[in-house]
Every structure is written in C-alpha cells, then in structure tokens.
C-alpha cells in the first residue's frame, strides 16, 4: 500500500511523539536499551499504525496479524508503541523496571497486552515466527507474521536454522525485517563478529533481500509490499538504521546500547529529537 504524503506526515508525527515517549520511559525505568529501541522505532510505527490488522480493544482477535520482536531488549521502544496504539495506558509505563511491574526490559507476552511472543534471549524470534507462519498456513488463515531481528543476534545459529526452514517451506506470509543498526553490546558488528556479506548470506539461504533505509517510511512500505506480494518468494528486509536515531549524542555511539539518562541528558535528547523533526 503506497503511502500518501499526508500519511507519511502522520507517521512522522507519531514517531516524533514516540521518541519523546522513549526518552521518558528511559528516565522512569532508570536505564534502558534506548539505542536499539530507537533504531527499530520507525519500523514499529509503520507496522502498528499502517500495516497490521489488529484491534487493541480485542487484543486476542484470532485473525490478527502477529509480530515477533526477536530483539526483545528493544522493549523500551516497543512498549510505548503498544501504549499509543491503545493496548494500555501510557502512564502505566511509569512502573517500567520497578518491583512487580508488568514491564521489564524484555516484554513478557503474558503480562503486556498486545505482545504476541515473549522474547529477550536472542535468536529465538525467527524460529517462533516461522512456526506462526506455518501455523497460519496449516489452518488456512490469511493473517501475516512479522519478525524484527537485531543484526547482532544474527550471530546466533538458531536464526540460520530458522532462515533455512522459512526458505524450505517457502513462507511468503512471513515478513522478516533486520534492524541493521551496525552495533551490538561490545562494539560494531563487523568488529565483534563480522556479518558481512550479510545480505549475501540471506540470499544463500534462499531469501530475496530488500535493502532499504529503515527510517524511510515510503521505502519500508515498498519493501513490505514486495514481501507480502509473494512474487519474490521469502523476503528479508535489510533495514539500514541508526542506533539511537534522533538523539544526536547517541547516534552511532556503542555506549548507548543500554544506558541511563538524567534530567540534563533527557533535555538534550528532547531538543535533539525536536530538531530532527523540525520542531525546535
């Protein structure tokens, strides 16, 4: 579904609000995986506000589309999206990370409404997404499964076991998106454990690779459309993103894989986000 200029503006507005939300939740939580939460945010915004067939007032709707956020540490980016999409009150995120809260840094599907699969341990998401997609096919259901992978987690062998099977089973009801932000905890992916030629690896496993700017809604939408068309067989969207996107002092800085921000840093972060969206 091609996006109109007005739709893109609405999505940008949503993303601007959510980047502020993520800053607030990071402050409330006392620390969070803010870098990776921000890098995948635009992907989540596009899915939750444009693509997904979901109904937040009927979160268990049988024929809803499913999302597996395999990079489960991105909870600080994911939870605010669910809140703004109407699954729960945004203010409840003030308890994030606190004793007894439903919200920990890796979201638990049993506790957080709207989460389809509990993730956190890396390399588990794509196998589950393959199971969901096969499950839909076995039950002759039209709903789609979306899986967001971190690039670092593609070091895990289970990701490639799953990739092999997605390709073997010819899954075109599965949209696989890699948040290619280039960093993992210990440094740049290419320094810690090189992934490149990353796209070639996916091609060798039988995927059609769609390289896009992961912060460009129109480009992402085009790639999702291609994936869903089934014309190219199983697809992976290699979404090139920036870790910490929107906060100038975090962008591309490995230090912000996980971090805490005080009120001064939070103000700087808000100002940076406003500048990026032309709201300063």
């Amino acid at each position, binding site marked *: 579904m091609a996006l109109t200029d007005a739709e893109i503006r609405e999505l940008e507005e949503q993303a601007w609000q959510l980047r502020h939300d993520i800053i607030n939740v990071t402050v409330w939580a006392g620390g969070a995986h803010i870098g990776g939460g921000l890098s995948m945010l635009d992907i989540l915004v596009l899915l939750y506000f444009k693509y997904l067939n979901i109904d937040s007032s009927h979160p268990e709707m049988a024929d809803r589309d*499913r999302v597996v956020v395999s990079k489960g540490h991105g909870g600080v980016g994911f939870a605010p999206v669910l809140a703004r999409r109407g699954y729960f009150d945004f203010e409840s995120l003030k308890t994030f990370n606190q004793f007894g809260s439903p919200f920990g840094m890796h979201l638990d599907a049993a506790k957080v409404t709207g989460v389809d699969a509990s993730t956190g341990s890396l390399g588990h998401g794509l196998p589950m997404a393959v199971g969901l997609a096969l499950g839909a096919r076995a039950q002759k259901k039209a709903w789609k499964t979306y899986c967001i992978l971190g690039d670092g987690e593609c070091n895990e062998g289970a990701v490639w076991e799953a990739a092999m099977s997605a390709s073997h089973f010819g899954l075109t009801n599965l949209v696989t998106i890699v948040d290619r932000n280039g960093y993992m905890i210990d440094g740049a992916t290419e320094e810690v454990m090189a992934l490149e030629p990353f796209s070639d690896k996916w091609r060798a496993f039988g995927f059609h690779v769609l390289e896009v700017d992961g912060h460009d809604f129109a480009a992402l939408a085009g790639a999702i459309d291609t994936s869903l068309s089934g014309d190219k067989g199983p697809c992976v969207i290699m979404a090139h993103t920036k870790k910490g996107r929107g906060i100038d002092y975090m962008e591309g800085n490995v230090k912000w894989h996980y971090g805490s921000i005080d009120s001064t840093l939070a103000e700087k972060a808000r100002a940076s986000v406003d500048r990026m969206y032309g709201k300063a």
Partner: protein
Amino acid sequence: MSEVTGTTWTVYDANSMTQAEVYGHVLCDIGEERDDVVGLTADLAKSTKIGLFGEKFPERFFNVGIAEQNLFGVASGMALSGLTPFVSTMAAFASMRACEQVRTDICYQNLNCKIIATHGGISFGTAGSTHNAQEDVAIMRSFPNMTVIIPADGIETANAVRACVDWDGPVYIRVGRGFEPTWYDSEEYGFQIGKAVTVSEGTDITLICCGVTVLQAAEAAKALKAEDGLSVRVLNLHTIKPLDEEAVLRAVQETRRIITFEEHTVHGGLGSAVADVIAASGKGCAFEKVGLPDAFSLVGYPEDLYAHYKLDTNGIIEKVREVMGRDFEEDEDWEDEV
C-alpha cells in the same frame, strides 16, 4: 501390528511394539479427532515413530531437519497460532540441545506443546553418552509450568499421550527406545496425570518407580514375597511433576522404608523429588535412591546396563534386602522424631 479393530490401545499389540511405535499410532488416532494437532520432528521421523503421524497427515507434519533449536522454536510459534504441536526427538537433544527453547519459548510462555522424548535414559546404551539422556528429568522438572511423565510401558505411553492432549500447558513424556517388556495388559487401570498407580500393596517397604523399573520392581516384589515373606508396596510414580505427594506421604506413614528406582542420574530426578517430600514431612524414614551414578554411563545393551546399575529385578531384590537389614526404629510414635 495387529489389525486395528477396536478403540483400545491393546489392539496395537503393545507387547511387540516399542513405546514409540505405540505413541505413533495413538497420535494418528488423536489426529483423526483433532485437527489442531500437528507433528514435528528434526530428522527423526523414523526413529521416534512420529513419522507414522506424518504419513497419515502430511499437511500437518513438519520435519525441520537436524535443527533442534529451530524445532522447538517453530513448535512454539505453532502453539501461539492456536495449534497443539506434538514434538518428537531424542531425549538428549530435547533436554539439552534445545534446552533454552523448551524453557524460554515453551515453558515461559506456558504453551500447549507436547514433547515426546524418545531414547530416554540409557535405553540407547550402545550409542554411548552422546545419545543417552540421564539428566533430562532433572532439567525438565526444574522448568516452571512443565509436566513430566515417564510411562512404564507402551500401554502407559498410550494413556499418557491421550491424557496430555487435554492437559493445559507443556508436557514432557519420556519413553525408551528398545522393546521393553510390557507391564500393563490393558489401558483400564486408572491412569491419571499426577496420580501414582499402586502396582502392588505392601506394608514392609515401598518401592517407588517410573519407566522401565516399574515392571522390574513388580517382579522383585513377587520374589520377595515368596522368598523372604516380605510385603512390598510398589508405586508407579509415572508423573514426576506434579508429584503425587500424598502417595509418598502414605508410604512414609505406612511402610517407613522407601527406595526409589529410576533410569536417570540420582541427582534431580524421581529420587530427589521423593526425597524432598520425605524430608519436608518431618518423619523418620529409611530411604535410598537407586539410579545412575554421577558418571557417564557405560556402553552396552540396555538389559546389561540395567543389571549393572541394579535397576533390574535382581538388583532391586538385592537393594530391598539391604535396606530391610538396616537398623531402624519401628515405633509409630512420631512425636519424638519431629
């Protein structure tokens, strides 16, 4: 296999079929009744016999190749999609190669996945320790939400598989490989998940067993009655978790001597589970755990290994005589002991 003419498991001629073969046939029956049931394996369709289901329901059967982590991840996704997956692979790989997927994907999310783990314990003893599973019960019972069942024979396997379909949440059913002799001759003996089955009544000592040791203990009890005049209670504690604590406590109260027999390391399996109940009861009890020692098992045919590790009839008789010979306070007054 004899011609299927009735609705009971005995028509499968469980005497001449492995537990896994019985399981494969029962699952085919369940597949007829329930279209939400799917089967998965990792290149062990033939070895585990889940391939029987695959032949009958090819559109509901998925072989993911030699990739056990993906196997359990995919099964989790299928359960999340509303299906009831039965997953079969060897116990060593289900419990160790895919340990975290079973724990985090299946148990953490409390999914309706049923794991049928074959080649449990040392039943594939000729293959050596890479293919033995002497730790799987300890691993599986440590996971919240997991139910752990070790059927005594093919008929009990059939009962367990049938019962687990409507049992909420993850279930681990551990069966052997070989042609273990059958203890039960009919499925009508009151199998219930979480409830011990009394194989023989007795008041002198209780033998708590699961899996292959049930038959061996039952035979030992007969011999001990004839030769030593002992009244030996034998409990088939097929469900390791949730454990039938009441049956254990009754054994403490009524026989005050207990030995557990299991085809598993003595660390963390049936014996440990029973020991926890005895210790918490605050009551004195002569107790011994018999199983595999804290060492990788020898290579050999299962029957030779069972004999070596005192898990066969002779070994059980020997252990019972040893424990009966222990000096033990016989009075029924618990007050001085609690």
